[in-house]
């Protein structure tokens, strides 16, 4: 007999119960333990892992991501705290295109100004972004997207187009069946857009061929890689693509339950996707499928697929050992197809136009890609361009550079920094990997001549050491060690010996860490040291 799935001891609702109870205050663990049957220590241990649950009294969180920092978020945070707001810094809020971003409770406010903070007069409920036009709040968080679709430039996702709930791709995929679908995916060359670039068709095929017939589809919408906000844009503008892509996936692999894990700060994208599911099924498509929305509670690491599965099961978001991979042992131990928002959003176009069509959209690698660009550019935003464009082409779409290019981070904090001389590299998975970096989530941050790379690297190290799940020593201790080493170096009178252990510890973190967070975390520092040693000199800007 197969065990019931979700299992009888399903605790996936537990974190939500803690949120409903007002967060982790004394007594809440006991109350939620009584209600859910989850051991009290586990309620406490899990809730204390997630910042939004662990610290319910901090109502204002100012993003300290690199792009927000360039826009003055540190000063804004100091001002907020001085004004009496219950404020702390936080990791990237996926709003790098409209900095500085501030999280008020679970709502992201963009382009918050000192005047906005002043107007709140210490009352977090009164904190609003005065720039926001007075229209539907869902529209407020939409950033710049482009380009327009044209004859010369067909697009797979086309963020400017109206949502399409005809279900045509879903019907077409149903008519094809899983084998043809996997063939088309293979022909499309679609690589996972979450960061790893793993060929999508291999996962679909693997899950389909598992002996276990209870299978799940999981959407990874825990977008948190600093510099990345494309999934937010897809969820806000084209939730139809996500819902239809998920339905196609579930139908293909024989799954009935689809779990959508949205980061807790995605209050607005939650609404658009919820409405899109209702519209899609309201039109009579995939009515036998069950969509389950789950909110994250503030932990970057849950964007790692196995940490996400743990969090979805109501546990601490600590990555699992791989192998086994989620396609074999996934959610509640069942074969699970897990994809990033953008990957799933490419599926309807592949079904409609065929795999070959999608492949031809790319330049050096298959397909178009949503590039997020922020930092020192005129019009930060999300741009759907052929995979393999150069930085200059991307920045041209974003209105040009502000100042003179000094360095860029091609794929989120995890990709480190590259110098201006590498501006002609095709921005794709293969070429960036060869350059010792990665495309990752394609969250590009541009730094101009005013930036100091020691300080930029330090910001990224702070991020990683705050977001390490704490499970394995190389990452837990290594991220903190590197952060403290750079801080020592910044101090007056401390010489280069402060960085003596960096190379060896970076090697250890890459070799020894369980997951990609720890493996990639040294890269901002090692790449900054490699390309910009002068920024680490004694007299560099402090």
């Amino acid at each position, binding site marked *: 007999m197969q065990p019931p799935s979700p299992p009888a001891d399903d605790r996936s609702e537990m974190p939500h119960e803690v949120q409903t109870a007002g967060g982790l205050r004394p007594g809440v663990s006991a109350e939620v333990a009584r209600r859910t049957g989850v051991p*009290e*220590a586990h309620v406490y*241990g899990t809730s*204390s*892992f997630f910042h939004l649950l662990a610290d319910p009294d901090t109502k204002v969180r100012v993003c300290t991501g690199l792009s927000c920092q360039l826009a003055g978020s540190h000063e804004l945070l100091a001002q907020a705290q001085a004004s009496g707001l219950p404020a702390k810094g936080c990791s990237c809020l996926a709003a790098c295109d409209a900095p500085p971003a501030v999280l008020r409770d679970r709502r992201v406010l963009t382009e918050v100004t000192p005047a906005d903070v002043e107007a709140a007069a210490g009352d977090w409920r009164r904190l609003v972004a005065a720039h926001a036009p007075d229209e539907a709040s869902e529209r407020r968080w939409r950033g710049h997207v482009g380009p327009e679709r044209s004859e010369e430039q067909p697009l797979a996702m086309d963020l400017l187009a109206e949502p399409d709930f005809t279900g045509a791709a879903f019907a077409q995929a149903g008519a094809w069946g899983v084998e043809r679908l996997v063939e088309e995916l293979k022909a499309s060359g679609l690589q996972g857009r979450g960061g790893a670039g793993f060929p999508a068709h291999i996962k679909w095929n693997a899950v389909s061929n598992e002996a276990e017939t209870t299978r799940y589809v999981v959407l990874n919408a825990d977008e948190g890689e600093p510099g990345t906000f494309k999934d937010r844009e897809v969820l806000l503008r084209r939730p139809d693509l996500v819902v239809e892509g998920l339905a196609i996936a579930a139908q293909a692999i024989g799954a009935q339950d689809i779990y959508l894990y949205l980061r807790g700060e995605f209050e607005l994208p939650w609404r658009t996707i919820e409405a899109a599911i209702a519209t899609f099924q309201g039109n009579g498509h995939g009515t036998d499928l069950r969509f389950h929305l789950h909110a994250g509670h503030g932990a970057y690491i849950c964007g790692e697929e196995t940490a996400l599965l743990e969090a979805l099961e109501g546990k601490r978001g600590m990555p699992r050992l791989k192998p086994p991979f989620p396609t074999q042992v996934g959610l509640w131990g069942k074969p699970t197809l897990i994809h990033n928002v953008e990957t799933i959003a490419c599926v309807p176009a592949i079904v409609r136009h065929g795999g070959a069509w999608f492949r031809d959209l790319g330049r050096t690698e298959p397909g178009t890609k949503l590039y997020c660009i922020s930092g020192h550019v005129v019009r930060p935003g999300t741009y759907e361009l052929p995979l393999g464009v150069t930085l200059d082409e991307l920045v041209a779409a974003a209105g040009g550079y502000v100042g003179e290019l000094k360095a860029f981070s091609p794929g989120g904090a995890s990709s480190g920094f590259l110098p201006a001389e590498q501006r002609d590299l095709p921005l794709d998975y293969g070429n960036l990997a060869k350059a010792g970096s990665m495309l990752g989530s394609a969250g590009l941050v541009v730094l101009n001549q005013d930036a100091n790379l020691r300080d930029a690297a330090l910001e990224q190290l702070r991020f990683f050491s705050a977001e390490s799940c704490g499970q394995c020593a190389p990452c837990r201790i290594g*991220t903190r*060690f590197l952060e*403290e080493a750079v801080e020592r170096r910044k101090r007056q009178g401390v010489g280069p010996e402060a960085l003596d252990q960096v190379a060896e510890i970076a090697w250890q973190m890459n070799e020894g860490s369980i997951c990609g967070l720890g493996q990639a975390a040294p890269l901002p520092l090692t790449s900054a040291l490699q390309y910009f040693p002068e920024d680490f000199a004694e007299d560099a800007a402090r």
Partner: protein
Amino acid sequence: MTQTTPESTGTAPAPQGTLFLDGEAHAFQPGETILEVARRAGKTIPTLCHDPRLEPAGACRTCLVEIEGMRRLMPSCAMPATEGARVTLESARIDRHRKSLLGLYLTDHPEAETVAARRRPNLLLDMAERYEAPTDWPKMAPLRASRSGDTNPYIDFDAAACILCARCTRYCDEVESVSAISLAERAAQTTIATADSRSLLDTTCEMCGGCIDTCPTGAMAEKRPITLGAKHEQELTKVRTTCNFCGVGCQLDLNIDPEADAGRGRIVKVTSPPVGTTTNDGNLCVKGRFAYEFVHHNERLTEPLVRDEQGQLVPATWEEALARIAEGFGRVKERHGADSLAFVSSSRCTVEENYLVQKIARASMGTNNVHQCAAT
């Protein structure tokens, strides 16, 4: 014991496989991990988070090995042995990995003198010495919270010495099913906590002390030896004995300070025999691990006492005492009949002792009124 043959149960014997450890062929049974095969073959693979009683965690990263065809170093504790796998246990890469990993651990761990105050073995420091890990990397003050207000009498947690291997929490979950403690917080603040950081007395904790037994660094330690300033475990003499609190027969090690009490020796604490060596597999309960103070208690009876004509208890020989009992029982039986007597044996009795109690009741006293206090 009956032997079941594959024919009698209808299942084929599981096929054994062969893998290669540093080039040598070794047979394995299905379900074994690389670590298990290697240890059976007498190979040394260091581990900190491994406890054979627990599901592998692969978290401490000390047991990483190279497996042909896999780019990354893999945790041998969690990797199943597979047919034909070629595993490298010793290489320059693995050596470098161990050194830098252990060096990193040391930056986040107290100095040897400080951890010695825990009076428990510290596998991390031993391992760092064995593999010549760098000791001169800058130290960082631990950010992990302890539970300083925990007034429970037995279990002390010093977060500074903790390496987050989570053996204690996994033991509490997987072996005891008690779940009194959990990993809490995250990043450098990750620690072992109770709900709301309460005292263990106010949780589901049963004070079995298994967390102490499994802890590789002494972060979890016996409280009394610390507060009483006892000697370090290494200086104590271990005496294997059978727990006499109930009939299960758990083996435990009395840790004796031979010089204490004017050379008569004194039990300082009780520890578990190594996992896998005794029937209780290192598991003990609160009584076995912590209730040893009666041994040296000044009110403990060490000889038989009988009442004199004034009703005062005075020392007697065993013969006198047993004769007094027989005489008293006989008087009651004569006056009120055998069924006016009842016998209740202690839960500390073994099966054999219980047998003897019922034999006294039935054969010499003639009553079936016999019970055992652990029966319900």
